[in-house]
């Protein structure tokens, strides 16, 4: 049994958690280009190193960040997301949604 230390629930079996992908900066979906958006949605660093990742304790639906070595599976550190994200991210909707088939401004 592998144990993950949840910042909210303490040490729990890793099978109670869901992996949520690497922590990446989120581009503004209304303003970014297709290349930036596909980069964010589909492409991965997939690094063999210590990586910052989203994890969720499923039973309590609590999302947090773990630093994990993807070559040894060693979990270096876990902490609440509020430590990395100090303010709310806002993506204001554009004044007018582009019509179907119309290019982005």
């Amino acid at each position, binding site marked *: 049994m592998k144990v993950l230390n949840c910042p909210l629930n303490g040490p729990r079996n890793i099978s109670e958690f869901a992996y949520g992908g690497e922590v990446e900066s989120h581009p503004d979906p209304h303003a970014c280009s297709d*290349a930036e958006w596909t980069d964010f949605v*589909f492409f*991965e660093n997939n690094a*063999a190193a210590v990586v910052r990742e989203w994890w969720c304790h499923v039973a309590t639906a609590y999302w947090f960040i773990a630093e994990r070595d993807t*070559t040894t599976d060693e979990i270096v550190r876990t902490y609440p997301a509020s430590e990395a994200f100090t303010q709310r991210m806002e993506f204001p909707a554009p004044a007018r949604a582009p019509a179907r088939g119309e290019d982005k401004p």
Partner: protein
Amino acid sequence: MPFGLLKYGFSKKYPARRHFAPRGDLRPSYDVVIIGGGGHGLATAYYLAKEHGITNVAVLDKGYIGGGNTGRNTAIIRSNYLTPEGVRFYDESIRLFRDLSQELDYNILYSERGHVTLAHTDAALRTMRWRVEVNKHLGVASELVLRDELARLVPQINLSEHVRYPVLGALHHPPGSIARHDAVAWGYGGAASRMGVEIHQKTTVTDILKKNGRVVGVVTDRGAVACAKTVQAVAGDSSLIAKMAGFRAPILTVPLQACVSQPLKPFLDAIVVSGSLHVYVSQSDRGELVMGGATDPYPLYSTRPSLEFKEGLMAHILELFPFLAEVKLLRQWSGMADMTPDFSPIMGLTPLENHYIDAGWGTWGFKATPVAGKRMAELVATGEVPGLIEPFRLSRFREFKLLGEKGAASVGH
């Protein structure tokens, strides 16, 4: 009898055939350097030499031939996919596999067994009807069977309704086969080597040399070599080689575990798969039950085993075959699968000119070994992307033209 065997073994009249020419020094330059000496890399080298006359080729592998996912898969070959692009592609692979022992003069123990994918839910049956229609339209043998027909086809399965996931029906794919996966790598490697291709085992690529957006060579732990073209066929390490080439790939490296039981007398001819139960099982020619399940729940560059995998897999195997309860597990291993978001592979051009990619083979790569090698060789030799692999281009992710094979490529995702 033992003396006869010993006499045969020591006799100079029957020398053992060497699989590959011994590894010499690296030449200063090659026409093509293939990074990765698994089935795909060796098949690419073989078809480059045989069909395009390009023999100034080096296959570099950081480990040994076929020691990666080529020797770690469960050796299942089938073409009952969901998208027309996928069905056409894998069907050509089956046709190549059937003649491969003859072509390579090496017995790959190709064994046509029939492939049965169980449905435990109405949703699974619905997807199977869809797959059957796509398959039949493209001339691939595929049939939906219900419980009575399934009981005739695979009488070994527990069809009781008093289990957690009763079986409702199955997708029957008669051409489904297994083969000896090591032999595929050795056969391709040996045949390529006899035509002049160099195979360099224990040679790690540490960097890719570029000039004006083109590949000009690779750096290895045995020195640098110049080359006109490079092919990467490195499965779980695809993202690391892509990074050397200067681009990111839509790939996550996730371990896939598998195991075999102790050898039993032959009792199971069909290959049995259940997506809902996260199980696939077949019986090898040695009598071992070859069993696998879903990929691990999160990415990792490691082939470590886990107890969770064995517990989950065995619980489900015993629901299908309760009489296996006393059978012992013999070996367990895992491989690093390069998973893509749409469960289809990535083949073709890359942002770096003259660097070609054969990746994203996740949990479905072994069955594509001949066709991937043949079509990658065609691409490398001619510079034109063959129509058969064009839909699997890397840039499809930039154009939102994904090829969703999740319903047919995977177990338990």
